[in-house]
Every structure is written in structure tokens, then in C-alpha cells.
């Protein structure tokens, strides 16, 4: 069994035993309430320099309200996993929060281009699947997993992937290192005060992300009683003991959609696009993050009841989510 080739990229090194020690020393195994404000959750659980993973994106069930809080608190030097991410990365780079990005796919425009040109952000190449899979490795508690892609490409060459001779078949197979983010932000449909969470619809990798991350912050459209969780145990995707904070955030996915609840605000997404093209990200960030003190205030003062009602009404598909 030999290493046939190895990429030379920088990656967050796997440390399964370090992860275990963190869990042992910091995770609450009792059923205790973890409900707190977005301010407290981000302040306590996101540190400058953290490797941050979020699930889904600003179009769809992403933790948009938590991201805006992160921006408001001016977190710095984050390293993010951009696995199928829309302009989330752009937003965090524009706000100066992020200096390293593991890329699967992200929308790239002026903000990322300028940040790259000025050396404010470093990109590391992976793929959507590889990042989801590296988090699966992290979720399994193992240091690496074999996979049958990446090999032969420049992604292999510039990443932390290795090509080995499989000791069972003798054939070549790649390995990727486990990814255990320091912190995960996940927006869910429903959870109880302890963090037992339900997520409806196809996702990217919410379960792997929660399992793989040292600290897990949930925002949720709804807090439901533990009794209701226990009446339908099959619906629980993340168990309470993985969760550090529960933030009650109706419309927490805004401007994205939460399927079955509200559609995306296309007008807002276009406003973002225009702000980037015009070099007016500072104004955008000020309007939507810095000039409001909380998600609730943003909804009230910037979105308004009428629009929220319209976005709910226009999400006509509830089947499979809430029916």
C-alpha cells in the first residue's frame, strides 16, 4: 500500500481525537434549553479565525440571518467551505469576514475578483461533492475517506487529495482528508429548545455538517415542543447533543427561500447583484446588516410585513414539507 501521488494544497488538517476531546469537554449531554439570541449565539460560538461551514445558501434555506449577525459582529479571518454556495461567499468577503475559501462552487463577481487581486482572500480548490464528502468523513469520526473522483485533475494537484494503491483491490483510489469545521451555521425548519431539529426538502449536507462541526448553531423558523419531536422521531435529522445554540429566526433564510414556507425575494437578490456591479457593497451591507441591530429589526424596517406576507403567499407548494 503506497501513496502514488499527492496534491500539495493547504487544508484544515484532520484531528479526530482533538474533535473527540472538544465534544467530551464542551457538549451538553443533558436535555437543557439552548435557546438564545442571534447575538449571543454568534458571539459565543464563532471566533475570529474559525473554519466555518454553513449548509445550503442564500437562495435556499441558508442561515442568512446568522450570516448577517456575523457581519454585524465583524468576525474576521474566517475560512469557509463554499460547497454549492451562491453569493454567500461574496457577501462575507465583502464584509471582510473571510480570508480563505475552500471552493466547491460559488458565484464569482467583482467582489471576489478584487479581493483575490488584492490578496485579501485565498481560494483552495475542491468540488461541491468533495466538500460534502470531506464533511462526511468528519461526521464519521475518521481522518480520511477514499473516493473515486478528483484524481487526474488540477483539483487533485492543488488540493489535499492523495492517490494510493488500495490494499484490497490493488487499484488506484483517492483519499481526501476529513473536514471538521470549527463551527456550523444551519437554518432548520423546526427544532425544540434542546436542538432536536427537522429539515424539510433536499438539502446539500445539513446532517454531515452538524455532525462534523465542533460547534453547531441552529437558526430555526419555528421552535416546537420536545413532545412533538418525540411523537415523530423519524423526522429528527440532528439530535440535541450536537447543538450548542438554538436561535429563533422566522424568515431566517431571507432573502432566500425556505421551501414550503416562503419563496426567495428576487428583488433583493437583484439589488445585491446591482450593488456588486456598481461597487456599492458597502451601502448594501450597511442597509441590510450594519444599520439594523437584529434580524427582527431588519425584517420590520427593511422588508416589511407586506412583503413577508407576499413571499409566504407566493410559495404555493407546501406538499411534502408541511402537508
Amino acid at each position, binding site marked *: 500500500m503506497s501513496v502514488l501521488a499527492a496534491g500539495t494544497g493547504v487544508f484544515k488538517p484532520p484531528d479526530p481525537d482533538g474533535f473527540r476531546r472538544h465534544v467530551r469537554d464542551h457538549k451538553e449531554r443533558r436535555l437543557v434549553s439552548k435557546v438564545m439570541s442571534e447575538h449571543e449565539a454568534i458571539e459565543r460560538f464563532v471566533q475570529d479565525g474559525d473554519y466555518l461551514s454553513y449548509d445550503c445558501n442564500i437562495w*435556499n434555506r441558508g442561515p442568512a440571518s446568522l450570516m448577517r449577525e456575523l457581519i454585524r459582529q465583524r468576525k474576521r479571518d474566517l475560512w469557509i467551505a463554499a460547497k454549492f454556495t451562491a453569493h454567500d461567499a461574496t457577501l462575507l468577503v465583502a464584509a471582510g469576514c473571510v480570508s480563505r475559501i475552500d471552493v466547491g462552487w460559488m458565484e464569482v463577481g467583482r467582489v471576489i475578483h478584487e479581493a483575490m487581486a488584492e490578496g485579501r482572500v485565498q481560494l483552495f480548490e475542491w*468540488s461541491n461533492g468533495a466538500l460534502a464528502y470531506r464533511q462526511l468523513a468528519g461526521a464519521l469520526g475518521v481522518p480520511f475517506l477514499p473516493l473515486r473522483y478528483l484524481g487526474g485533475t488540477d483539483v487533485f494537484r492543488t488540493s489535499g487529495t492523495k492517490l494510493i494503491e488500495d490494499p484490497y483491490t490493488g487499484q488506484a483510489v483517492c483519499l481526501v482528508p476529513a473536514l471538521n469545521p470549527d463551527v456550523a451555521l444551519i437554518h432548520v425548519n423546526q427544532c425544540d429548545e434542546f436542538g432536536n431539529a427537522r429539515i424539510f426538502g433536499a438539502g446539500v449536507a445539513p446532517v454531515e455538517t452538524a455532525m462534523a462541526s465542533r460547534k453547531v448553531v441552529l437558526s430555526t423558523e419555528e421552535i416546537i415542543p420536545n413532545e412533538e419531536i418525540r411523537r415523530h422521531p423519524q423526522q429528527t435529522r440532528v439530535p440535541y447533543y450536537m447543538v450548542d445554540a438554538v436561535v429563533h429566526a422566522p424568515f431566517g433564510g431571507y432573502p432566500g427561500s425556505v421551501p414550503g414556507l416562503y419563496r426567495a425575494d428576487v428583488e433583493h437578490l437583484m439589488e445585491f447583484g446591482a450593488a456588486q456591479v456598481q461597487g456599492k457593497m458597502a451601502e448594501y451591507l450597511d442597509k441590510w446588516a450594519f444599520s439594523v441591530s437584529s434580524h427582527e429589526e431588519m425584517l420590520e424596517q427593511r422588508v416589511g410585513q407586506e412583503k413577508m406576507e407576499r413571499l409566504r403567499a407566493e410559495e404555493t407548494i407546501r406538499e411534502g414539507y408541511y402537508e
Partner: protein
Amino acid sequence: MSTTRTFTDMEQIICTTARMMEEERLYFVAIGGPPLIAVLLSKRLRTPNLTYVVEDGTIAPAVQMPAPAFLIASSAAGYRAVAWTDMNTVDFHAGLGYIDYGVLAAVQVDQYGNFNSTFVGAAYERPARRFGGPGGANEIASLCWRTILMTRQQGRKFVNKLDFMSSPGFLDGSPDARQRAGLPADTGPWRVVTEMAVFDFDEESRRMRLLAVAPWATVDDVLAQMEFKPLMAPSVETFDLPSEEELAALRAEVDPSGRTIRGRWITVEEEDGRAHLVQQEAAGEES
């Protein structure tokens, strides 16, 4: 009697790709873009029972037509699927050999069908233009049995050397190159579809081969838009223009917002079964 038809380059690419699709095969597409639109068009017009999986874990959805303007990752895109899973799950299904065709868009492609969706120009650290990254393309191009690539016919896209190989074709074209790199056996690119041409790959050399051209283009027109010279099929066929029915379905039902189907306008006049180019816009900067 002559008729005139006007369509975008992307509409031609989508229609040609859609016509290759079969109901007894399973397709893998990324969350949005031309591959999804091609699948939806084929389902709408020819293969209503065709099934596909989407990168986000959606399996065999039944998208209602007309599709909403903001289809990507919306509830409409997953409507009446047979299962909602996640990214790793559908990648596993591909890894297990269940998925016949991956359909993908490429920014640059080389003669072995390797392709780029990461950056072009200059060096990696300071690219002339940075793109979104491979997304799911690397895994889809590695794990599905066959890959269909959709791209525009331009010299800067059909290159001798990729600026970055985001996803694998036949790599260096040597026998078993993919297996030696750790990829599953008997997989690889199958067709490359542009507005002007369809290519396949030679069984032996793994080099790209010109299979068919648009009725308004010649082989030389195609070669003029490639840095490398492809092999030639024994007889290069001519494929059809987008039909009125296809264009109507695309514009009114499959992509009513025009987000995906927009592109360079091409006007073709057909007369006595022959077609010739009347007018086309210059190639733009878009990918």
C-alpha cells in the same frame, strides 16, 4: 419557399442535447443551467418519463410547466420528486453506477474532453477571469458512465491546454488513464455539444472527433473556432435547427425568464432543405 428562424446559440445547444436523451437512462444534472433546461425540454416534448437526479439530492422530480422564473433550488425544482436526499447520497448513486449520463456545462475543453470551470488567463493566483469552480462537475464527470458537455464553439474554449483542469475527460488520453488516476472504469466524456457542432471521442486515441455540424455551418467554420484540430468522423452529419415547437416550449414553458437560454442571436434561412446563416451577433464575453 424559404423560412427564417432566429434563436440563440444556447437554444441550439440545449435543443441538440435534449434530442440525445432517452427514457431508459438516468441523468445527473447540476442545480441549474443549460443541462437542467435540456433535460426539462426533453421531458416536455419527447421523453416525459425520463428521470434525473440533481446535485442537491433531488431524485426524479416532476417539475410543472411553465417553470417559475427562479427555479434553482426552489420548491418548484424538487416538486413531486420520488425522493429528497442530499448531495452525498446522489453522488453515491453515481458512484455505484446507477447514473448513465452526466450533463454538464464547460468553460474550456481540451481534445481529450477534460474541462475547466475554474479560471482562465494568467496564473491561478491572479486569474484574468475567475469562475465558480467545478461545482458538482468533477464528481459527475468521474462517476457517471457517460458525460455530455455543453459549451459554445469558440477558439478560446476549445484549447490545446486548459488553464485549469477542473474536471476529468480522458486525462492524457493514454489507455486506462482514468483508472490509473483512481476513477471508475469505462467512464468518460461521450459527446460535446456546441451551437455549431457535435463531437464524440475516438475509441482508441480518446481524441475528440467531429461528428456533426449545424446546417448553417461548415466543417471549416467549426475548425476555425478551435485551437486544436479534432479527428473527423467517416461522414460528418448535419443536425437540425431548433424547431418551432422546441423554441416555443423553451421560451414559454421551460425557461420563461430567459435566464439560461439567452445568448448570441443566430438567424438562419432555410430553403429547399438547405440552410444558411443570415446573421449572427459577435461572440460575447459570457461563459
